[in-house]
């Protein structure tokens, strides 16, 4: 090997390292932004609780010497923090799931929505509510459980259908779209035949929201979501290779079919976990992967964590706006995610001239 050759390698290595550093900084930046926004959100709300008092209430739990009022403690620890954490967890899960699904199916239109998972969950919840189970009390867990089961069921149905014809990507997506229509129709029937108050509960659930966030839910979801996210990230290399085509991936030793099933199942679990509790929150799973791909490129090692953080950030900002804009009245969060996310997304779409998909 000549000296010139070695030098060239070092030069490209340098570029690679520099780019990697940039990406790591971007992810760190997102993380810092998320922490800052979380803390800011803790000081905002309908109760007239100043920023100082709110922060005092947080710190008082850690430093027992500090004085705080019972009222501030309840507002911050029982009402604001669980909700903020729930927004972060939900946004993160939807962002990660969306990225993984888009990566594995090599299709920019894929999201928990298009694969029918959201419609499945909604249908499950709708059936539970129509059966006369209340959103309150013990019934709540029945609705959550039903939503969870139905969205996983959807995933397996989509798989089973595509299996029959070989796992062609189009089949998967078409099966997902077809099933969502079926579920939407079922929800429509339930809405049509339900009496007024039941109808309200179904619509309420369909709108999605984070105001029912509780510590129990956060504590239950935190380890589950962390584990699934880490597991998903372990498939980053496989996803990277698969993005250059399935034949290429197969020739490089990636077991394409197996990776696809595992990653999609992980994504389905992730989605099902959160939407079962929050109701349908759309758009995050689509917008955060695209946003991050526009900035970072298609390396899933960076894309997955960045997209998770971006999802968390968008949802947290949206939900905080929902809580505070016309307080004390709450705006449904789906409205806000679209109002905040869409202009941002369109801006990126127009500004970036590069074709960032393939």
């Amino acid at each position, binding site marked *: 090997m000549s000296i010139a050759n070695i030098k060239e390698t070092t030069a490209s290595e340098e570029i690679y390292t520099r780019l990697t550093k940039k990406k790591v900084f971007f992810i760190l930046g997102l993380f810092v932004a998320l922490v800052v926004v979380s803390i800011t959100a803790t000081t905002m*709300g*309908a*109760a*007239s*609780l100043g920023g100082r008092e709110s922060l005092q209430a947080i710190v008082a739990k850690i430093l027992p010497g500090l004085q705080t009022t*019972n*009222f501030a403690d*309840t*507002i911050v620890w*029982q*009402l*604001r923090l669980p909700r903020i954490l729930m927004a972060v967890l939900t946004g993160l899960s939807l962002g990660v799931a969306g990225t993984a699904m888009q990566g594995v199916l090599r299709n920019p239109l894929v999201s928990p929505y298009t694969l029918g998972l959201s419609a499945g969950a909604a249908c499950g919840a709708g059936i539970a*509510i*129509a*059966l*006369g*189970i*209340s*959103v*309150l*009390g*013990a*019934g709540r867990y029945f609705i959550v459980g039903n939503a969870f089961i139905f969205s996983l069921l959807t995933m397996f149905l989509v798989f089973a259908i595509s299996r029959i014809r070989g796992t062609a990507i189009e089949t998967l997506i078409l099966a997902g779209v077809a099933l969502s229509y079926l579920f939407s129709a079922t929800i429509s029937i339930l809405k*049509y*035949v*339900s*009496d*007024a*108050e*039941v109808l*309200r*509960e179904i619509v*309420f659930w369909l709108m999605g*929201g984070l*105001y*029912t966030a*509780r*510590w129990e839910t956060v504590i239950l979801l935190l380890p589950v979501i962390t584990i699934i996210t880490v597991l998903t990230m372990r498939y980053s290399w496989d996803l990277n290779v698969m993005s250059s085509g399935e034949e290429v991936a197969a020739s490089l030793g990636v077991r394409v079919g197996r990776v696809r099933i595992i990653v999609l199942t992980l994504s389905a679990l992730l989605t099902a976990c959160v939407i079962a509790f929050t109701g349908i929150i759309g758009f995050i799973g689509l917008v955060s992967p695209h946003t991050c791909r526009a900035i970072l490129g298609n390396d899933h090692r960076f894309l997955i964590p960045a997209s998770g953080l971006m999802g968390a950030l968008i949802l947290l900002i949206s939900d905080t706006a929902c*809580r505070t804009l*016309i*307080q*004390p*009245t*709450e705006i*449904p969060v789906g409205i806000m995610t679209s109002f905040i996310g869409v202009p941002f997304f369109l801006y990126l779409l127009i500004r970036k001239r590069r074709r960032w998909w393939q």
Partner: protein
Amino acid sequence: MPCPAERIVSLQAGASELICILGEADRIVGRSKDSNFPPCVEEKLVVAQTTKNINMELLLEQKPDIVIATSYTPAEMQDKIEAAGIPVVIVASTLEVDPLINTIRLLGQMQDKGEEAEEIIGFVEHYVNLVKERTEKLKPEEKPLVYHERTGVYKTSAAETYVDTDIVLAGGVNIAANEPVKYPVVSAEWVLERNPDVILKMAPAGEIATEEVLKEARDEIMTRSGLRDTKAVIDGKVYVHAYVLQRGPQLVVGLLYWAKWFHPELFKDINPSAVHKELLNNFYKLEPEGIFVYPQ
């Protein structure tokens, strides 16, 4: 207009109920699905899911003399019914006192049952006036702050809703009266800060009101993290009520319960449950069945 009508289709639950207590249940030949009280109306044919979703062929097939509809019934539907030569009578909601009385009077005149109608109106007015007279003199500081929650979590009612009207009539102050949305979802911390003296909860829907269900709804409020520290929960002034006590003549029973919860001293002599029994016995020829409020 053919009066009295021999064959009536009623697309409004409140009107169906009133026709029955006027003693004209036999005239009903079709109903909306939510017309389910008193029990005798449940035997009638369902020709509409709601006042908006009407099965026109089924409706016309019953050859009604008259169709009772609401302002929510689409104009196209009304036109079609009238094109078939059937007059459409639009009635108001029976969730508030004044429209209720008007509707009772209208239906009474229509069915030649003016005397019966005036009797019911007398009963309703008697108790409404009783509540009014006693709460009118209250000073603002004597009126409890009330948070009313519908079946959804933190879903409440602002001014110009029947819930607000009932709260005001019963001598309370609705904490959400000034909200811009009619049925808003409000933030938990705001409710906590307003610190209501009384919390009312509408019983969960889709369930037969058993003591267990109402108790579960109350326990949920009593232990909910945002409400646990409110004055209402600490004083145990959390009440669950069934939706039926806010519709038709039974709304006076709901009103009496609320007034008594807000001002126990002022309404010491009133027994809402006995008034309920009297109303059902005399006008509906029914015995109260099940449970309507919790705790009783």
